[in-house]
């Protein structure tokens, strides 16, 4: 198999040199339609991975006082309060949601969790999403790491070996999602390992284990992609037309994420880039350009000398 920096990859672990009997690629499906914003994932992650506390700041950003993913926050729950023009109440007897034969009744046609009051001309929606490292198929962080500290595990995940990391920070701007971050106290890079140590012992990652509503689902990526597609169909049938997957497509700019999401709005609403591209996508052509430029420069120099002789 040849190395690839872009496009779909059938077997990332094999591509990284793991033997044929490596375990299947695993990841997360984070279904935000059932996220209750309890932040158990944040806490479980910190407890298991001994990640330090990340600052006692009231951010005024709804119930989010974590702010962003970083060296000291590997799971981050975003809270998005949306006020939208009020929808008209429709008549009762909304057709059934759920399995055939069941009829749910008598509810206004509000968005999930919509709030309506007569005194107001607006609806409120409160979206919650637990963000995490995407464990990209094409992980630019890994591509640019000069020490080999970042590596692809046999599970197809991307992990930093902090004892090798020299703190050069190349990976930080390389990440299209802004996940990688240097811990100021020790100068090294820290991020989600998808609980590599737990996976090695046959356990699911701490965040998925702690999630009470199964918003964070862990499993073989193929299975999660099927589950995600099924859940989107379910939600569409139930009238939640905004439901969509984000990061599951192997044809996207990063070759698909190992950790992908079911969102209820545009990715930008959640602070996610709408169309992320692996920053090393153009590396081969950049090398070509660089080589061409080098060759041109060399040619010019040679030409100059040749000219002098002449």
């Amino acid at each position, binding site marked *: 198999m040849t190395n690839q920096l872009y496009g779909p990859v059938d077997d990332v672990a094999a591509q990284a040199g793991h033997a044929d009997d490596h375990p299947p690629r695993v990841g997360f499906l984070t279904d935000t339609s059932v996220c*209750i914003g309890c932040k158990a994932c944040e806490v479980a992650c*910190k407890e298991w991975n001994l990640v330090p506390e990340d600052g006692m700041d009231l951010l005024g950003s709804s*119930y989010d006082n974590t702010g962003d993913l970083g060296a000291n926050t590997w799971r981050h729950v975003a809270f998005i309060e949306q006020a939208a023009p009020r929808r008209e109440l429709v008549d009762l007897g909304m057709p059934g949601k759920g399995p055939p034969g069941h009829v*749910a009744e008598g509810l206004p046609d509000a968005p999930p969790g919509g709030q*309506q009051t007569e005194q107001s001309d607006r609806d409120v929606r409160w979206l919650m999403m637990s963000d995490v490292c995407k464990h990209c198929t094409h992980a630019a962080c890994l591509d640019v790491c000069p020490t080999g500290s970042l590596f692809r595990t046999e599970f197809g995940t991307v992990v930093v070996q902090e004892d090798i990391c020299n703190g050069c920070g190349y990976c930080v701007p390389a990440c299209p999602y802004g996940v990688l971050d240097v811990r100021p106290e020790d100068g090294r890079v820290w991020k989600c390992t998808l609980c590599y140590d737990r996976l090695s012992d046959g356990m699911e990652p701490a965040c998925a284990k702690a999630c009470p509503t199964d918003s964070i689902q862990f499993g073989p990526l193929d299975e999660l992609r099927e589950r995600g597609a099924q859940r989107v169909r379910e939600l569409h049938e139930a009238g939640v037309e905004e439901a969509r997957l984000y990061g599951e497509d192997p044809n996207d700019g990063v070759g698909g994420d190992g950790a992908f999401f079911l969102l209820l709005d545009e990715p930008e609403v959640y602070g996610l880039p709408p169309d992320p591209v692996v920053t090393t996508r153009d590396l081969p052509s950049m090398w070509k350009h660089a080589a061409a430029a080098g060759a041109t420069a060399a040619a010019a120099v040679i030409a100059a000398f040749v000219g002098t002789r002449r």
Partner: protein
Amino acid sequence: MAECHPVGFQWVMEAKRRGATVIHVDPRFTRTSALADAHVPLRAGSDIAFLGGLINYVLTNELDFREYVVEYTNAAAIVDQEFQDTEDLDGLFSGFDQESMTYNPLSWAYEGARATAAAGHRDMPKPEAGAAAAEEEAGAGAGEEAGSGGPPVPGKPERDPTLQHPRCVYQILKRHFSRYTPDVVEQICGVPKDQFLQVAHAVTRSSGRDKTTAWVYSVGWTQHTVGVQYIRTAAILQLLLGNIGRPGGGILALRGHASIQGSTDIPTLFNLLPGYIPMPHAHHDETLEEFVESDAGSTGFWGNMRAYAVSLLKAWWGPHATEDNDYCFGYLPRLTGDHGTYRTVLDQIAGKVQGYFVIGENPAVGSSNAKLQRLGLANLEWLVVRDLQMIETATFWQNAPELETGELETERIGTEVFFLPAASHTEKDGTFTNTQRLLQWHHKAVEPAGDRRSDLWFYYHLGRRIRQKLATSTDPRDRPVLELTWQYPTEGDHDEPSADAVLREISGVDADGNPLPGYTQLSDDGSTACGCWIYCGCYADGVNQTARRKPGSEQSWVAPEWAWAWPDNRRIIYNRASADPDGRPWSERKAYVWWDREQGRWTGHDTPDFEATKPPDFEPEPGAHAQHALAGTDAFIMQTDGKAWLYVPTGLLDGPLPTHYEPEESPVDNLLYGQRANPARRLYRHPANPYQPRGGDTFPYVFTTYRLTEHHTAGGMSRFLPYLSELQPEFFCEVSPELAAERDLEHGGWATIVTARTAVEARVLVTERMRPLRVQDRVVHQVGVPYHWGPNGISTGDAGNELLPAVLDPNVNIQESKASTCDVVPGRRPRGPDLQRLVADYRTRAGMSGSTDTATNGATTDSTTTDGAVMNRRTGA
């Protein structure tokens, strides 16, 4: 529920996925609202009007589950003609005594039952003992003592199964709620009529033979001066719709802590003994027989109370408890009145209490009007605080706000404080009892570090040492302590008592020491011992049944082999009601337990909550006793009449039916009655506990206190942990953009929230999730005040509960902390004596003098003390 019970909320999400409709009724838009199909914001403190509106909707449109209602509830019972409703008396029921602010429930009785009912009111003083005694005893929270079944009424009432008799419960109910129309709901609750009707349609359409609706509540319902009646209103609605005793139905009380259900079953309450046996009152020479007689009633399963009580006494005093000495009944403590937490604290301030144990609770910042608590703590001789962290209740002498204002001085506080570190649940064996009555065993995972010890260790060794000290005493008053059964095996370096042995004692044994299978085996002749009759059988067959953890996937959907539910491992109580009067399931879809004609017994998915072989057509012999007096259709087997009570003829202290009353502090008058607030509410008049007067615009906004997912109650388990503190690092309040504009509040800035008690400062979150509501032609703004904070720990801030008055529900002595009024101004609060000046200024503007006489509805005032002399100092003067 998502906010405070995220783990339990997974089942709501699962139900939703399976097609359930989730409606969230709450003043605030919370995490629950975010995931619900609809959020219905209503004014804090107006839920009875909302639920009453639903009841009226059901009755007006005759949408009740008629067969269920006639057979299983007391809808057909005829009520005494002396009874007068709030509709007749402008908000009062018959029997109210203005002077003592208490009810005499005589006239509420079933027809023909008056005289007897009066004699049998749960071991309370007889009515002829006078109003003063009645008031004192009422304070003992007698309503609570009916915890696991109704109080006794004599035998079966007269009935009209056609429900046409003008004095039958059904007709009384209809009249009582007739004015709770959708328009009135809109006026009182601020819920638009169309939205209310949508809820009404959803609830009624999802109830009946083939469907059930469940109601889930938390302290948002209980913490009101009418808290018990809130739950009663929901119970009436659920009974009318046939949603009790059936799968998918019921009313689920979400508790505030992991084992609050357990702490009422085996009570930490002053007025109860284990298994909801009432604590005896201080009568002269009362015998066990008289105690049981006045409490138990003779029919229904409470008719066996003597067996439960004798078995309890045998568990406590073992061989010392004999028939000759009335099984040591005289050793039980006696009640002389209200010994609830707020009364006790006032007694501390008055210098009447010497010592105090505070276990796993942080009243110095967690209780309503927390200042009262601190003044009480500062006036003790000794205080023991057992907690995981150094909480404010242990450090009040160091950092109470009163030190800053000069009301207290550390040097003058004589209380000797003992702080004892406690082991957490991972460091000890034991059970949690959840709201489903499920006892779940937890195993010790690690040894408690350092000086941390379990509560079991503490009480066992405290008792052991006290008994050692008393060993040579000949004083008769020491006999109850010395004769206690106090022999538990201990293990390990710290002599940790065996929790397993305690559970075994609770479950009960026969005369030979063999484990009992269940409470029906309990005997009143001293041959059985059982620490809590409703838990009897949790150690059946010598196996810790509570430790069972068979996965749900390996057993039936009822999962009877996961842990153990009281009573008798029943997962749904009163499940006889899941079958029709003939014993057939109401529908295939909702089949749960049913009568198997061939085998001649009840069977089904769960343990039937009925005598196994009593056929549906059974009619009791006249004069039969206990369960033998119940017919084959009397599904509510703990009630003396076997019926669920839509109307409560006796047992409640504030009326036989729920009635909308405004909270003690409310921005509006009662739209329905001249009587504004619950007339029987428990007021504590004290200079440090002033109540705001009605009317005026000094305190124009409604506020409600609550918890956030990230913190736990008064913060003892969360504010000291970095991983939780960073998630909600500071005290904040939530206001709508409209209120922010009205009061110049800046998002992220500071606000000072003021009540007649004090003022606190909080950071401001301006959010669309808070909505102004239109109530009786005015806009009502609500302020959200999470109450987790205090000065200790990592995440610090003022304590929101400082703002609240101490005013209680009379039945269960629970404070009204979910609805009150305040003012909000931008900026931080004043420091030191300036804080007192600010509050004093507000009181003056509100027309409050230094006294506490605040014109609360004809209530008498017994205090004219001024603010200067708050305490009768016990020590340190």
